[in-house]
């Protein structure tokens, strides 16, 4: 069989047969092309470039790029919890169990985890659903957290961070063609993993707006509006909630959660509760209520029927261990046949990283009062959360002193999402450049100050409004400088484009 030359390419000395590539922009999976992920999008790519330029000696009005774009605590200098690192070190190199370097409670946990690993090694594959004793510990943690409501370890699936679990559930839900195509309700603003996953799976994105005037709260009438509109062109099947919110930081009231559950029950929606920031609650009068707990306290009419998946991870809260890729989901009231499919689906990737599973185990099974490591642990944990709370408050305070910036209270999570008013001329220029106005703003901010934020357009926002997301993670003194610089930039930007 002869090759079919697609086109001829002339080189210096000869003609070369130029075969058509198998993978071109036209033959690529169209869903992959649609995927965007603002948190690591063009602005971050430019930030990386600038870092390289600085390293090469380029002169700029700043000496370093400050990455306030991604919720990565350790990258910003947050210290890990000593106990967790001790247990993980012991699990990695068990010979350390013989020495005197580590406290007994750390050793005990390491031994227990290693016993559950094939060949006593974290290098062995685990069961796809996760190491059994870890799932049991997670179940116990959930039970304690939720005031004794039983948790079955069989409903726990360990995962490679929460993102992996979220995508896995979405894969189960997305099906159908045309008007029957699965619709998934997501908040606006949202964490762009959701929009990226929905694009990747070819699902229909159903947007419900959080109420900026009311601290980004969720209003069920808005859910209803979005749903009714969506029913015209797709088959809504799932409702995603992020609580505490990303990027908004809002912490839902108990009443609100009940209303959402009732809505999901009425409208036959599968609830996905992203609760990775559950320990990051700062504001007075705010409290984390787990969806599961509220569900069960609403009685069997709901707790026996509403399908709910709750997600958690080791990347946030006070642990901040993004690099370990630890996480889990709890599936509640899932159809048994679907659960079988889920179990098969997770086996395709073999298993989640075992060090992440080990870390998750210690996170849900930390030192208890009386144990040797308890005092240090509690001190570190409290201090980390306290500092975050201070920074949350500081951020809100400073931004609200800037004319043209309004910032809702950062009730929880790790970000501020202030609204910025942009002069008409700036908006025009952005449009001319083919950029979203807040992208235009953030790019300028990056070039002039080295501060990397993510424009609100990456998360979704009401038409005609502009925002940016900034993490509260930089160390306090640095954060103060960053806030001051953003303030100055905003004032000069506003002046420049008036």
């Amino acid at each position, binding site marked *: 069989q002869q090759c079919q030359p697609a086109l001829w390419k002339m080189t210096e000395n000869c003609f070369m047969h130029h075969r058509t590539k198998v993978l071109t922009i036209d033959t690529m999976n169209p869903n992959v092309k649609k995927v965007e992920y603002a948190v690591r999008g063009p602005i971050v790519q430019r930030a990386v470039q600038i870092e390289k330029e600085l390293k090469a000696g380029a002169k700029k009005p700043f000496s370093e790029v400050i990455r306030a774009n991604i919720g990565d605590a350790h990258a910003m200098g947050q210290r890990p919890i000593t106990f967790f690192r001790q247990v993980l070190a012991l699990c990695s190199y068990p010979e350390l169990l013989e020495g005197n370097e580590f406290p007994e409670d750390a050793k005990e946990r390491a031994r227990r985890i290693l016993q559950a690993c094939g060949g006593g090694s974290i290098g062995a594959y685990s069961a796809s659903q996760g190491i059994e004793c870890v799932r049991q510990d997670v179940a116990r943690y959930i039970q304690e957290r939720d005031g004794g409501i039983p948790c079955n370890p069989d409903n726990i699936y360990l995962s490679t961070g929460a993102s992996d679990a979220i995508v896995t559930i979405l894969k189960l839900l997305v099906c159908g063609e045309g008007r029957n195509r699965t619709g998934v309700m997501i908040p606006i603003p949202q964490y762009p993993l959701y929009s990226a996953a929905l694009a990747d799976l070819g699902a229909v994105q159903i947007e419900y707006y959080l109420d900026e005037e009311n601290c980004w709260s969720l209003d069920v009438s808005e859910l209803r509006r979005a749903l009714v509109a969506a029913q015209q062109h797709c088959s809504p099947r799932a409702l995603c909630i992020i609580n505490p919110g990303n990027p908004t930081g809002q912490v839902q009231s108990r009443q609100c959660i009940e209303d959402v559950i009732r809505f999901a029950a009425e409208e036959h929606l599968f609830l996905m509760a992203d609760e990775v920031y559950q320990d990051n609650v700062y504001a007075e009068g705010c409290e984390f209520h787990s969806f599961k707990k509220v569900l069960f306290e609403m009685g069997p009419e709901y707790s026996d029927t509403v399908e709910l998946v709750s997600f958690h991870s080791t990347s946030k809260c006070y642990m901040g261990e993004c690099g370990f890729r630890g996480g889990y989901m709890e599936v509640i009231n899932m*159809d048994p046949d679907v659960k079988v499919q889920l179990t098969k689906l997770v086996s395709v990737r073999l298993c989640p990283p075992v060090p992440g599973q080990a870390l998750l185990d210690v996170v849900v099974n930390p030192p208890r009062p009386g144990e040797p490591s308890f005092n240090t642990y509690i001190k570190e944990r409290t201090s980390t959360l306290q500092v975050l709370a201070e920074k949350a408050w500081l951020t809100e305070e400073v931004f609200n002193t800037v004319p043209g910036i309004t910032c809702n209270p950062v009730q929880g999570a790790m970000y501020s999402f202030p609204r910025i008013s942009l002069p008409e001329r700036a908006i025009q220029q952005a449009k001319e450049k083919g950029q979203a106005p807040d992208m235009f703003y953030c790019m300028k901010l990056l070039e002039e100050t080295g501060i990397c934020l993510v424009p609100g357009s990456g998360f979704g926002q009401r038409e005609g409004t502009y925002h940016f997301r900034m993490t509260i993670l930089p160390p306090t003194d640095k954060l103060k400088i960053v806030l001051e610089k953003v303030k100055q930039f905003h004032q000069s930007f506003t002046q420049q484009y008036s």
Partner: protein
Amino acid sequence: MSQNRFQNLYPPMPSIFMAPTEIMYDAKHLFLFSHTQGVKKPYKEVIDICWGDAHSGGTKPLTFVRQVIAVCIYPELLQETTIAPDVKERARRLLRECPGGSVGKYCVCGIPFVQDGVCEFISKRDGGVPSYPEDIFICSGSQNALMFVLKLLVHGKGLAQTGVLTPIPCYPTFVMGLTELGAAMVPYYLCEDDGWCLHVEELRRALATSRSHCNPRILYVINPGNPTGHVQSRESIEEVIRFAAEEELFIFADEVYQDMMYAEGSQFVSYKKVLFEMGPQYSNTVELASFHSVSKGIMGECGLRCGYVELVNLDPSVKQSVTSAFNTERNTAVIGQIALNIMVDPPKPGDPSYPTFSQVSLHETVEALPGTSFQAGSGGIYAYLRLDLPQKALLQAKEEGTDPDLMYCSRLLEEEGVCLVVGKEHGQQEGTYHIRICIGTTSTRLKEVLRRLKSFHLRFLNEFS
């Protein structure tokens, strides 16, 4: 009463590939349970040699690897006198490469230092053929990497459905992955009588027949093979590359067992190296994805979940999209990347840790028992035996309503406490039956497995003669 709103929700997983393992594992749990209940069995413990998992099989992790990881996790260990200087140096270097100096940080695409190390490794392995960091994508294991690259290519339905040429036999996880993504599997049969080698005529046949029902675009090869252990000759690789060039196929070369060669005189040569030695007509045009991982080889670190794919000759128009798509999902555990760094840049002769970082030897291969045949491979981590089952056994299986090789394996488990993989899982020619044994285990364990297998096998032949 929950309404099954999810009927037809999900493309059906190929139960033909899943059921045997499920049955075996259910059976294994049943036996383990009955054992705890005091039921007497002629054996003390069930030996599970299904998985290509060296640590589960009793192989010890490499000290250097684990020490470096421990120090990176808990840098206070840098003060420990019992830890060798080269361990500390490596750990310090890796920590410097993690902004914030912590392994708790997200790492997009991979830590650049690790990527560079991978490039050097590839280049050295391939006699100087260049490798570039932007072509290296570090993922959570080779399965993850495979799914990532597959997803770039797989789409469409009906005649437009992307087809993937897949060897038979093949390990089942890959096939499940194809189903998950909605790709059409196009089987091509490896030649058992010829040591499981790949014949291009068979590729041609498979491709030709597939065109009537899908759009074949990918050619998946596993070298060294799983489950066969066959290592492709250079000539064979050249033939495959030529074929892929002619037929405009993207080659996926799964080379995770490249460091597990055991037969005297056998040698692994990479697809990339052969490609580049075939001259610019091929080396500038044929698209190749080459996969490797820390799960196999002397590392055996399956649980750390780290591997990479090198994408060669990607069309420039797609590079940006590929990178964006990758950035969205992929965060490979930092611990895994540390292991990868050591795999591609191990201690050298003269380094304090070098003596303990020696080659793990794969032990004696399985001798053929009467009524079996064995095409010994030269690499990989498995022995794949064909069972020549007596007619009476086939009839018995039919009566029991089960597959002959599943019946064989179930009885083996029941009577001797050995759990292995049923050939049906990998696909096999009609009327042939196989079993797969993981030989990446300690010598003692393997001897025990073979002893039990022989004992069972002879009894089985006797019973059904």
